[in-house]
């Protein structure tokens, strides 16, 4: 950079350096400015993300009940406790079931809505708004409606009223794990809340598909409908689909609000976060085991993300552009 002053100025060098950036001392230097811009964020990230993770790592090797400044080192005991803990392992199973249903369900619904809305000739903005509107509603509020008005297990609930028309008896949707009707409640509430958001992503992607591709396909004899969808639309949506699935998976890992509010007094149907919440902040206040559990989860999420990236080529779409 500062080569000009060192040795004899050769004529092409200044021509290369001068037009780009005028700089004046430290205030103008890119390095200084880089840290000026990113510094506040990075300090916050260090304190409120990296430090907690490290602290968690530290705590996870100690006996830490009711205290965050532990003294008794117990090695990997907390990890062993968590990995042999039936409730914690059960919560991983709960998560797996949940993800196995909610991810494809939301993917399909949001794509279906996007295809429908994108086809409309008029009132398109209206329908888009209707499907998008639940994004504004909190999980707590939606859980409340689901629990108290749609699936409340008694005669005046909407679901039971509707089934009553066909002579079907009242179903206690949330009261017992067997039959597991609570999954219907859990899955529909999240589907309603998040489908509209991902629909927007799909609509954006659909509108990016060049119209010429469909015209070319029509000339080549592809039947509109299923064939064009399978051979043109779907492949063109690949990058978006991958991103959507990844986001859905991460969101599923973080499931807390609806499980906590819909199944507040039960011991079953607890995903990992709810389980950890009870472990670390419940009556036992076991921060050591809670931290170990959080780290196990983090490692799992990293693994799944990396694996998915390998299989589905996350980011490949971006690079190829």
């Amino acid at each position, binding site marked *: 950079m500062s080569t000009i002053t060192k040795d004899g100025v050769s004529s092409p060098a200044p021509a290369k350096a001068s037009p780009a950036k005028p700089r004046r001392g430290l205030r103008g230097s890119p390095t200084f400015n880089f840290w000026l811009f990113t510094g506040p964020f990075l300090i916050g990230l260090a304190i409120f993300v990296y430090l907690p993770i490290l602290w968690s790592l530290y705590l996870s090797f100690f006996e830490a009940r009711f205290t965050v400044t532990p003294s008794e080192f117990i090695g990997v005991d907390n990890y062993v406790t968590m990995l042999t803990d039936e409730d914690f392992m059960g919560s991983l199973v709960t998560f797996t079931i949940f993800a196995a249903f909610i991810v494809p369900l939301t993917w399909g619904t949001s794509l279906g809505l996007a295809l429908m809305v994108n086809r409309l000739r008029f009132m398109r903005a209206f329908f888009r708004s209707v499907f998008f509107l639940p994004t504004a509603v909190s999980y707590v509020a939606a859980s409340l409606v689901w629990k108290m008005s749609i699936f409340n297990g008694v005669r005046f609930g909407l679901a039971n009223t509707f089934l009553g028309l066909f002579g079907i008896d009242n179903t206690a949707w949330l009261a017992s794990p067997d039959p597991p009707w609570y999954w219907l409640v859990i899955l529909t509430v999240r589907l*309603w809340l998040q489908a509209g958001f991902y629909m927007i992503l799909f609509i954006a992607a659909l509108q990016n598909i060049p119209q010429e591709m469909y015209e070319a396909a029509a000339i080549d004899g592809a039947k509109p409908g299923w064939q064009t969808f399978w051979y043109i639309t779907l492949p063109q949506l690949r990058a978006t689909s991958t991103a959507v699935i990844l986001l859905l998976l991460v969101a599923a890992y973080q499931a807390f609000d609806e499980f906590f509010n819909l199944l507040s007094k039960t011991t079953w149907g607890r995903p990992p976060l709810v389980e950890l919440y009870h472990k670390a902040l419940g009556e036992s206040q076991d921060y050591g085991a809670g931290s170990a559990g959080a780290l196990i989860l983090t490692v799992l999420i990293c693994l799944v993300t990396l694996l998915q990236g390998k299989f589905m080529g996350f980011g490949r779409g971006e690079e190829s552009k």
Partner: protein
Amino acid sequence: MTTTTTPPADRVERVDVSAKPRRVRSGSVIGSAGLYLATGFAALLFLIPFYLIVRNALMTDPEITGEEWKWFPTDIQWGNISEPFDDPSVDFARSLWNSAVVGVLHTVGTLLVCSLAGYGLARIPYKHANKVFYAVLGTLMVPTAVTFVPSFVLVSSLGWIDTYRGLIIPGLFSGFTCFLFRQYFLGFPKELEEAARVDGLGYMGAYWRVVVPNSLNFFAAMATITFISGWNSFLWPLVIGQDPSAWTVQVALSNYMTGQTVNFHLIFMATAISILPLVFVFLFLQRWLVQGIAQTGIKG
């Protein structure tokens, strides 16, 4: 592709309709009627929960729990509106105020911190910028909710339990928001900034006087998304707000749900009130919101 063979007449015709994405298939009347029927049915399903909230909020409890399903209240109970505020068991007005403070400060802070960082990462040449970027990306793999146990430990040792500081500050440093801003700034036209820099502005000057004023759409979109997520967040406020005076509206709602006595119309009125500001923001800012989400760089 095969477009080279297109006769010019066809091209002229295509220009006419270029405003709307045209379907190759000229949908038959029956086909489009079916489409509208299906879309309308789906829309009805999506609207039912909103309808239920309003219906229950404006009914009396005996009507809600009555033997016969009533689609509309026989006598609209406007008086219900004040009930959540009169209820002594939960300070509902206070919880709304807390949510408003947290929502606004969370939004302003996040946008300030994350947009600056996103710009720095996208635009300022620094040889280790990539390493810094990967350090930010790495936090995306660790969802914030998973770190709530250690974060709680940290915040409680700072003595920030039951404070606005505790509710707001730890949430400001979102790797995801920073990432979205970086993606956006990568696509920002370089020429504008270069002109400003040639005119003698530093990086900061160019950022505030040229880049931000030309990015207001994106900032509006991100503000909306951030405000919605701040207003709606539950786990963190639940953990931090241990004293009822520090509850946000979501924590208050959750408490109604698990409370001993169930007062249906009150609970649904409180829910309606908690959703109303957001629905308003949402419908009002929807254009930017949709644009912003579409622009976030996750599209194909």
